[in-house]
């Protein structure tokens, strides 16, 4: 099962990282295209340092990767990290699919 493959620390980092709206927005953007940290900073009403901090949290959670290119830091989405969140949702979906089957059985009795 998915949870066995992830350490508690990894899970904590993953969900802490996704619990913030700005960080979720960063993930969405860099999954579609690449951004520099300064390019991202220009998008939000917060300091460069604050955006840099968000990027660092996302990097620790393996949701993004950061790479130096010249004087710029280029941020890209990390597919594997998002894949983990998706797998957890898959588990939850399985629970609901079972519930729906049981509901259908109950309704069929009538």
């Amino acid at each position, binding site marked *: *099962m*998915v*949870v066995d493959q992830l350490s508690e620390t990894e*899970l*904590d980092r*993953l*969900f*802490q990282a*996704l*619990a913030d709206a700005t960080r*979720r927005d960063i*993930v*969405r953007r860099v*999954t579609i295209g690449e951004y520099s940290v300064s390019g991202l900073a220009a998008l939000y009403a917060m300091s460069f340092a604050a955006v840099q901090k968000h990027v660092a949290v996302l990097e620790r959670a393996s949701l993004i990767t950061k790479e130096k290119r010249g004087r710029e830091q280029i941020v890209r989405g990390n597919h594997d990290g*998002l894949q983990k*969140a*998706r797998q*957890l*949702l*898959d*588990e*939850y*979906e*399985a*629970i*609901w*699919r*079972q*519930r*729906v*089957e*049981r*509901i*259908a*059985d*109950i*309704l*069929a009795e*009538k």
Partner: protein
Amino acid sequence: MTVISSTKNPEALTLTLVAEFDASPEQVWQIWENPRQLERWWGPPTWPATFEQYEFEPGGKASYYMTGPDGEKPRGWWRITSVQAPTRLEFDDGFADENGAPVEDIGAGHAIVTIEEIGDRTRMTILSIFESEEQMKKMIDMGMEEGMQEAAGQIDALISEHSRA
């Protein structure tokens, strides 16, 4: 097919599940409104749920436990935030301690259930929104025990199909 579609958004931590049943909206509403019916499907056969408190009204509280094969009893709670029979139900849900008191620092999830008539069938849409990492993790931990029963449930369904044929 009962489940029509499911949409997962890993960035926002949401799951949307759409199912259709050969039943009326009132019948589908009953499986939520009546706690004795709810108990028959909320937990899998090996982890049945027992609702000790069920106030089916806006602001109402629900308290339940599940009984595992080894007698373990994880507890959960709901806070019902919207009831519009027979079309819409909203509630927060989370984990409770052994006395049934919400474990507040774990946080809560939110569920929005909508029920609508589609021809002679009824569509039920469930939107689950996770709020915190700890809460989601707990949900999955609890869900894993259920997940292990999935294969068994499918086998049971096949057997009963055969016996009906």
